């Protein structure tokens, strides 16, 4: 029997977000909706990354004067997860910006946002 705790719930929420995002990217036809689905996906990934570093009753991983060096590695949360999340947010924002900008250009050209019309395969 798996014990249900905060970490497991967060992982499940992250998985749900990723699945919703993937489904939206695959099945929604509007390009803007696809972009929103992508942001959901990226939020799910971020949540998973933060959850990975979670320690029950943990402390911030900054070694302050007075913290015992032995207890610190046991209780400190994993620092790399939040670090990656920061970068991922920045990358996500810039990706979204590029996506939206190109979508605007394509909308001006075609007058529609339907991916099935705008993004269909090329025949050379």
């Amino acid at each position: 029997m798996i014990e249900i705790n905060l970490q497991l719930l967060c992982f499940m929420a992250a998985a749900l977000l990723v699945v919703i995002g993937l489904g939206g990217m695959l099945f929604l036809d509007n390009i803007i909706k696809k972009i929103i689905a992508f942001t959901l996906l990226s939020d799910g990934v971020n949540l998973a990354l933060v959850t990975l570093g979670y320690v029950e009753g943990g402390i911030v991983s900054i070694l302050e004067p007075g913290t015992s060096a032995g207890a610190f590695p046991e209780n400190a949360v994993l620092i790399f997860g939040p670090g990656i999340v920061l970068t991922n947010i920045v990358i996500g924002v810039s990706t979204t910006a590029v996506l939206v900008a190109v979508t605007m250009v394509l909308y001006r050209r075609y007058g529609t946002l339907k991916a099935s019309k705008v993004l269909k395969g090329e025949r050379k």
Partner: protein
Amino acid sequence: MGSIDSLYDKVKRFVTEFTSGKSTSSAMTGYMTGELQIVVFMMILASFFRIFSIPLGMVILAAVVGAIFIFGPMIKTIEDENSSDLNRVLFWVMIYFAVIIAVTLWG
């Protein structure tokens, strides 16, 4: 009935199925060579089965050769599946990912 007339019809249908629309000679060359490539490639893929068992590999090779002649020309299907439609590529990526995870996790 296997008369000469029906065989001609079959061959004609087979050849005209290669390209849709205007078929120039260079486009036809491409499609014909592509079809041949795919046939040989399928046979090579089937022959990889020799790693697991040689008799089974031979059976599969024969089956693939038969299937190619029944279902050909396959180049149109290949071309359609390789189009750069966003949703189609997304679909194939997810299938791929599922297969990779399945093979490595439970393989």
